[in-house]
């Protein structure tokens, strides 16, 4: 009788241990799946950003932006201004926002930058080609030479300054 009871206790102990071990593995599995899922989501976002970065690096050499004089990594400021007045370009590119920021505004908040219009160009800091006004977006940027024709003492010359070409894509991971 006593021996039978002791066996029952041992079986109970064994059962508790097995339940404990299974629970432990379930928690570890859930933890692992959560980590992998998080990594996958970050990887997808990183891929989207890399694609946007690769795309903007090619933008400077596209006919819509490149400088007529064979300069590398150069954007024609006048062309960019002309594009900013054509709303159809919103549909042409896959970005949610596309803009050029001059070096004088690199350290400024976006709200403090002087937006370029036909009235104040070229004495401005930010050429917004288009903005779809998306709530959550991630921006990537690339340095470019921003060039335009200037006149001094009656002579023309090409003036190039440093600027950033900024392209933003919709950040789907931040949406709730």
């Amino acid at each position, binding site marked *: 009788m006593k021996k039978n009871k002791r066996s029952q206790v041992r079986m109970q*102990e064994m059962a508790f241990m097995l339940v404990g071990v299974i629970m432990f593995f379930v928690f570890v599995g859930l*933890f692992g799946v959560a980590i992998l899922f998080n990594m996958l989501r*970050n*990887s997808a976002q990183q891929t989207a950003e890399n694609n946007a970065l690769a795309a903007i690096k090619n933008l400077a050499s596209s006919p819509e932006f490149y400088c007529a004089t064979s*300069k590398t*990594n*150069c954007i024609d400021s006048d062309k960019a201004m002309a594009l900013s007045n054509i709303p159809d370009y919103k549909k042409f590119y896959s970005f949610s926002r596309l803009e050029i920021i001059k070096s004088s505004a690199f350290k400024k908040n976006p709200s403090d930058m002087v937006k370029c219009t036909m009235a104040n160009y070229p004495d401005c800091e930010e050429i917004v080609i288009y903005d779809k006004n998306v709530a959550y977006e991630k921006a990537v940027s690339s340095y470019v030479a921003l060039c335009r024709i200037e006149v001094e*003492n009656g002579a023309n010359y090409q003036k*190039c300054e*440093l600027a950033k070409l900024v392209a933003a894509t919709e950040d789907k991971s931040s949406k709730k």
Partner: protein
Amino acid sequence: MIKNHKGQSETVGFVLIIIIVTLIILIFLYFLFRPTSNTSTTSADMTYLLSAFDEYTTNCTFIPDLPQYETGKDLISECYSNEGELCVNGKTVCQVLNDTIKDVIGKTLDIGQNNQNKAYRLTIKYFVKGSSEQNVTKFNTQEGNFVNCTERYGGYSIVSASPGSLEVRLEVCKGKNGEN
């Protein structure tokens, strides 16, 4: 009683082994799948910065009253071949190059001991492929100190200087404040 105690010890040992093995597997998985650093992207950024600097219009011209301003690339070339040459503003080409680099880098990288980027170094080296006259430093400018860098990144560009080439290399020191 002694047999029962021995059984309990075995169970505890078994659970401990399972926990240790699981932890080892988890650590291994972490190192296997951990996200890689994006140094290469940043380095590409610096290469694009130097490429934009090559076309940058400086305030150095050699003809008075005529707006034939030299580009960054022209000044790099001039500073190598004729470093004593004076611009109309009275400064030598190398002085203007140094001032322009400081201005451009200052606007873009925000260098400072309490900032994300602690220091930068820009070197221009002359090299001829297959010649003994290789990697001769022709120009060197630096701001800040390269100490306690958590990451070093940079880029380079090549400017033609017949019969060889000039390699412009930019190196940036990123500190702990930049890890946010």
